[in-house]
């Protein structure tokens, strides 16, 4: 899933980079696995947050409309 960031020219590892510097000794396999879990976590979280905010905005708007109808 990192392809999106690569395509956008974002250096994923240095951008948020705690422990991602060249000084960190990790096998490529471990790095790849870690990156994948993090990317899945970030992308799925962003989707959930956006859907949640939209859902609650719609609900709140519905309540406000109902209150306006009831009390003017």
């Amino acid at each position, binding site marked *: 899933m990192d392809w999106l960031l690569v395509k956008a020219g974002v250096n994923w590892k240095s951008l948020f*980079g705690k422990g991602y510097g060249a000084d960190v000794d990790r096998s490529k396999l471990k790095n790849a696995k870690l990156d994948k879990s993090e990317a899945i976590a970030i992308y799925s979280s962003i989707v959930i947050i956006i859907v*949640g905010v939209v859902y609650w905005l719609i609900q709140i708007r519905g309540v406000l409309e109902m209150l306006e109808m009831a009390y003017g």
Partner: protein
Amino acid sequence: MGQAVELLPFFEWMETSLLGQIGKSYGGVYAIGQSIHLMSLAVLGGTVLVTDLRLLNIVLTEVPSEAVADNAHKWFKRALLLIVATGIFMASAVAIRMYHNPFFWAKMSSLLVGITFVFAVKRPLLKMPHSDINPLALKAVATASLMLWFTVAATGRWIGFS
């Protein structure tokens, strides 16, 4: 709505089942089930809050986040088990009414997403040493988790007022 229409016979069966009849006929049993459901919800909410607010560096900052997340997850699983069990019992008593309630479906959808998120995304991530995890990933997961479980709780309460 095609799938939902097909579920109606199942909800009708739930209401006429032994579980549904017990819930309908014995108010005391229903009240006990509801009390256990709400207390379990409180425990689950507590574990979610303590884990996610720790990941956001708001509470318990002096305690390692791994310890908080691991211990809270044990109680999260127990609370979830009780919530599902008592929830099935409670829904059985008013199954047809639940079927026609949009907030019931909103709750079920968010609960399903919440459980999937915890066991497929959050836990696998938090099993790693937290110092190795990208801070943005930790904060995103914590925020999404708070949003999800807030939606589960709020839509659950909204069922009673709609």
